[in-house]
């Protein structure tokens, strides 16, 4: 499917992929990938096609129902957010918009969140529906990560930075963030259960010959965690996660439950 991926931007923008294909398409696109940009632009173009329909006012009762509904429906909260200066309707609206989407100190989150949004499926590139749990987790994480965000910033400011979304057991999600240029990598867990009593999750960097190097323990638990990989990225080809005796091992003793190519 990869060779053909860019051909799907049009049908994606028109919501003309079936649910499964849509999910695959969204998951296959790394953040900032030109195909993702094209999909975003074509989605905005598709939005303009709505103006090609005849406006029809819904019956008045619909508004009455809605007004009654919103009066008792709480709005989803947004986490720590900086006041934004009045938006200059300037040249680079897209980049500006992305920068404004999150506080500067947590800009890395914007990148990670963008991946989530793209993967969200809900409202596609605007990522409105679903994902509330994840979003809450990301916000919690943003609030707690300021001291560590410099590492993430260094990763994401590298031209070769990549954010990969990987499913983890129990419906959890891991975001693997890495840059070979910066030689740094980190893992965000979202909604991942704590390891069993007396066990730890351990991260491994695995080279192309299959040799595993310990890269620190992975914290997990309610909400989200950020884990920088100790010892840098080196020439790792894969990132793995195993369950080990508490405190970790020097070599994996179980089969990795996550094994992700860093290519």
């Amino acid at each position, binding site marked *: 499917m990869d060779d053909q991926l860019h051909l799907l931007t049009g049908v994606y923008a028109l919501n003309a992929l079936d649910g499964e294909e849509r999910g695959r398409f969204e998951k296959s696109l790394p953040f900032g990938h030109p195909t993702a940009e094209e999909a975003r632009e074509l989605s905005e173009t598709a*939005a303009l096609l709505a103006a090609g329909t005849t*406006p029809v006012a819904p019956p008045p009762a619909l508004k009455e129902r809605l007004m009654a509904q919103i009066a008792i429906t709480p709005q989803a909260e947004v986490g720590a957010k900086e006041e934004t200066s009045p938006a200059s309707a300037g040249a680079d609206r897209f980049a500006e918009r992305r920068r404004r989407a999150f506080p500067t100190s947590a800009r890395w989150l914007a990148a990670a969140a963008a991946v989530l949004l793209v993967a969200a499926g809900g409202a596609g590139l605007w990522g409105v529906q679903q994902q509330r749990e994840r979003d809450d987790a990301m916000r919690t994480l943003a609030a707690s990560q300021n001291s560590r965000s410099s590492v993430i910033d260094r990763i994401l400011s590298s031209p070769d930075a990549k954010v990969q979304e990987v499913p983890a057991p129990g419906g959890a999600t891991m975001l693997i963030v890495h840059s070979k240029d910066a030689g740094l990598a980190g893992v965000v867990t979202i909604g991942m259960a704590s390891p069993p009593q007396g066990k730890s999750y351990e991260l491994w960097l695995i080279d192309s010959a299959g040799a595993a190097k310990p890269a620190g323990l992975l914290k997990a638990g309610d909400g989200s965690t950020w884990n920088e990989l100790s010892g840098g990225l080196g020439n790792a080809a894969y990132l793995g996660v195993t369950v080990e005796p508490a405190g970790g091992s020097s070599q994996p003793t179980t089969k990795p439950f996550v094994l992700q190519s860093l290519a």
Partner: protein
Amino acid sequence: MPYRDAGNAAAPDVDALMARVANGDQEAFGHLYDALAPLVHGLVLRVVRDPAQSEEVTQEVFLEVWQQAKRFDSDRGRARAWITVMAHRRAVDRVRAAQASADRDLREGAKDFRESYDDVEHRVEVALESERVHKALESLTEVQRQAIRLAYYGGYTYGEVADALGLPLGTVKTRIRDGMIRLRDVLGVSHG
């Protein structure tokens, strides 16, 4: 309160209204609804067709707007596009869900659809932007235009579009993409 023509008032203050809605302003939500409901409902009706179901979808969309407004606040400037995309996605999902239980006759559907589309095209009362969109659509090749109309306004998957037009899947995929790129350029949607 001064009467405002929804068609003209929609564009300028939607983003400002959205910012107020994000602050929990219910009155602003009412105005936002007034400004965008005809656009949203028109689109939903076009795709879903069934009036009762369309009303449900429109209601869901606006409830979602209310619930998610704070999230949108930091991304201002495109409230209309945001809401439109949401509406289209929901409308399409509704159609597909309905389709799963009672299979639509696609060829018939495509034919009806084209007829209803032509009706609409001949309506005199076309908003300025609508005209711009129609002109942009006219700049496409016949196949591009048909495929995009069926997919967007008809809510069909590209596989169904291929069936309806009697074209190979790959052709439909690329024609749609070429057509959308053309529309993007004609309508000036680009972030460079």
